[in-house]
């Protein structure tokens, strides 16, 4: 049987890619380790190597094909001793295989690598010109615009310059702004976070990128003790106008040490502001506001959202104020408040519940400190029911804080207990099924809402 060459997953979150070009033609000899094709992911162009020796029998996916799903066969290699007749046998076997799959009993491994990504809602109330772009591009544009307008703004972190960003968020910035303002650091989180805060004390406005917020635990002393507290300790003389940004929370099967939500950790601390956007427009508008803000801002991104596109205002003046939540779906029966990637899950749940006659109002918190309690309470006064949603652990979490505030300030408006949906109270497991169980899923959100609606 010919050996199928499958579309490879080239990052933990890759679900599809483009076949840039083949470097082997049908009939060519292929040795194990030979580069046979170039694949474009959303982050980079990667070469793929043959794992087996053989002859390129048939190319199944042509040069330039877009959006090829991971694990799709892209070519067939003829093993030693096989000739073209083997390809025909293969075709027959494939036909049989297809029939067996239509029964739906078997799920391909590809389907568990990453769930489909929800498209975030557009900024419908914005009336200026917009363009479709990814969250990744929106973040890059926010930094570029602020760097153009203020020489004191610079970007520092691991792989932000020559590598163009570990997640390609800083793509192109080195070319435009040069090595003085886009600075690659050694792997030294504690050190470069402290260096950034020291520079901010003098009035510079660093954007410190953590490759992920998991690594910022090495630097948390500077974020809290040096950045958040100095304004107070100095009687208002000097503070730290600095942004700490990077991906937060679970990505896809990267295990316990790389999958954690830090929202409640940082939101706990006076002196810090904490934001976590979902849509591309908010990513841009909030990052611009964060860079302009004279206080230290924790900017929590999500790796799974980087490649999601939506409408983004084109104007350089577009800024989303920190501390303002947004009602992203209007409803009357129950309110659900979440942030970052969980907003998409909440919208999906709302859609399902609408079919059952339950009208759900969805709030994207956007900022976690300051927390827009007013918007939540206004909504609760209308719906009289509240569910909170977060990816992180519930203990002392954002939902716990919202629940306390609403109970304190709007107790009489509640017709049911406030319920919280969040991550399972365990370190993140690696196994695909367990990871899925550990993270809030749409079905759980639906069931939770149904229990009090």
């Amino acid at each position, binding site marked *: 049987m010919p050996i199928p060459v499958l579309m490879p997953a080239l990052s933990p979150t890759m679900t599809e890619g483009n076949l840039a070009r083949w470097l082997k033609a049908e009939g060519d000899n292929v040795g194990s380790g030979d580069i046979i094709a170039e694949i474009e992911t959303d982050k980079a162009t990667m070469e793929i190597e043959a794992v087996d020796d053989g002859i390129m029998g048939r190319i199944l996916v042509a040069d330039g094909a877009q959006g090829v799903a991971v694990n799709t066969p892209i070519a067939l290699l003829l093993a030693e001793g096989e000739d073209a007749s083997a390809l025909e046998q293969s075709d027959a076997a494939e036909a049989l295989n297809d029939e067996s799959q239509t029964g739906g009993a078997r799920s391909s491994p590809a389907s568990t690598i990453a769930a489909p990504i929800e498209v975030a809602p557009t900024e419908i109330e914005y009336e200026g010109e917009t363009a479709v772009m990814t969250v990744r591009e929106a973040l890059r544009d926010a930094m570029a615009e602020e760097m153009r307008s203020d020489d004191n703004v*610079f970007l520092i972190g691991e792989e932000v310059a020559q590598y163009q960003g570990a997640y390609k968020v800083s793509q192109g910035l080195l070319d435009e702004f040069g090595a*003085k303002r886009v600075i690659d*650091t*050694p792997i*030294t989180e*504690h*050190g*470069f*976070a*402290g*260096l*950034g*805060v*020291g*520079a*901010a*004390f*003098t*009035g*510079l406005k660093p954007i410190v990128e953590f490759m992920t917020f998991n690594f910022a635990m090495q630097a948390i*002393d*500077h974020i809290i*003790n*040096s950045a958040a507290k*100095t*304004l*107070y*300790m*100095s*009687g*208002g*003389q*000097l*503070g730290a*106008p600095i942004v700490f940004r990077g991906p937060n929370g679970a990505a896809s099967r990267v295990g316990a040490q790389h999958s954690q939500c830090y929202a409640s950790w940082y939101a706990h601390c*006076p*002196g810090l*502001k904490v934001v976590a956007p979902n849509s591309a427009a908010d990513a841009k508008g909030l990052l611009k*506001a964060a860079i*302009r*803000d*004279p*206080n230290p801002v924790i900017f929590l991104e999500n790796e799974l959202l980087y490649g999601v596109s939506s409408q983004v205002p084109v104007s350089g003046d577009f800024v989303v104020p*920190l501390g303002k939540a947004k009602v992203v779906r209007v409803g009357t029966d129950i309110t659900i408040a979440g942030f970052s990637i969980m907003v998409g899950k909440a919208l999906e749940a709302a859609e399902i519940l609408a079919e059952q006659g339950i009208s759900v109002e969805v709030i994207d918190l956007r900022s976690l400190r300051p927390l827009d309690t007013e918007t939540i309470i206004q909504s609760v006064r209308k719906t009289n029911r509240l569910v909170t949603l977060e990816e992180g652990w519930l203990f002392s979490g954002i939902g716990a804080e919202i629940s306390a505030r609403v109970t304190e300030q709007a107790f009489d408006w509640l017709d049911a207990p406030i319920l919280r949906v969040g991550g399972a109270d365990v370190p993140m497991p690696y196994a695909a099924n367990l990871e899925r169980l550990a993270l809030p899923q749409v079905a759980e959100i639906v069931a939770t809402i149904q229990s009090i609606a």
Partner: protein
Amino acid sequence: MASSGSATQKKRPKLASGRGTKRKLTRRNSPNSKTSAAPLVVGGNQALDFYRNMLLIRRFEEKAGQLYGMGLIGGFCHLYIGQEAVVVGMQSTLGEVDSVITAYRDHGHMLAAGMDPKGVMAELTGRRGGYSNGKGGSMHMFSKENRFFGGHGIVGANVSLGTGIAFANRYREDGGVCLTYFGDGASNQGQVAESFNMAALWGLPVVYVIENNRYGMGTSIERASAETELYLRGAANGIEGEAVDGMDVVAVAEAAEKAVSYARSGKGPYVLEMHTYRYRGHSMSDPAKYRSREEVQKIRTEKDPIQSYSDKLTANKLASTADLKAIDEEVKKTVQEAADFAQNSPEPDDSELYTDVYVAA
């Protein structure tokens, strides 16, 4: 295989040049050696300024100790008595664009940076007239005007922060140098090594001043550091280092001049290890049982930075006993005024509790 040079090798590995910079590691004027040979190079006003500034710190700290005993100063209070020559000698080389950052034994650094003793003492007493309006305390005091960036209570944190201030000097190309002080205890913190690496990598204008007073709280340097010659700590990154008699203000000033001009010229960071000694405990609540009374007494008698310096001034006829006496009186008066101010300044208004958490955006 046996190395042909093994007979002459010392315990420490030989240091090779790195990054094309010729590294020089010198040790001079150890406080442990009987003959401190630094020449008395300063004369006139600077000679008397050294004396005045060291004495101001000594008297200020003694007064702070008294006020602590009276319950007027609370919390932690780390006195600088014994180490005065380090900060006074270092400060003599700094210009307007330069800045200073240190850890929690910081009152001397503030006075040397030109901060008002009244404001410093009133911060110690937690009063409205303090540099942080009473909200910072002994370990957290700042003066933007005097380019004094604190005052930091987390051991080693000030080293990364100071490296960042030097980064800003380089970014702005303003010719400034940041003096980053820390102790022998802090030198074992990981972020010190991280900062040294970045400073050397990017050639930042920072002078790291390690005040080696031989004890990190109650742990002697021998019990804490595998390599006790701290001026070598930058060597792995090609940073020049030098050990200096930190009890001799003139030796310190000379070393400072060299190190600061080196950093200012764009050659990168420099490490100065100051051999010094604190007479008091780590903080006011430390009984200092980890060292003998004799050890302290011996240093006070033989190496006291103020006594030895005033002896040299009079021996070299740079000052008369009457001149010094006049300075003593002037300093005493300044310190008393600071103490009075610190006791009479009101506590911060209750409304100050919620101010200065955020800058209005």
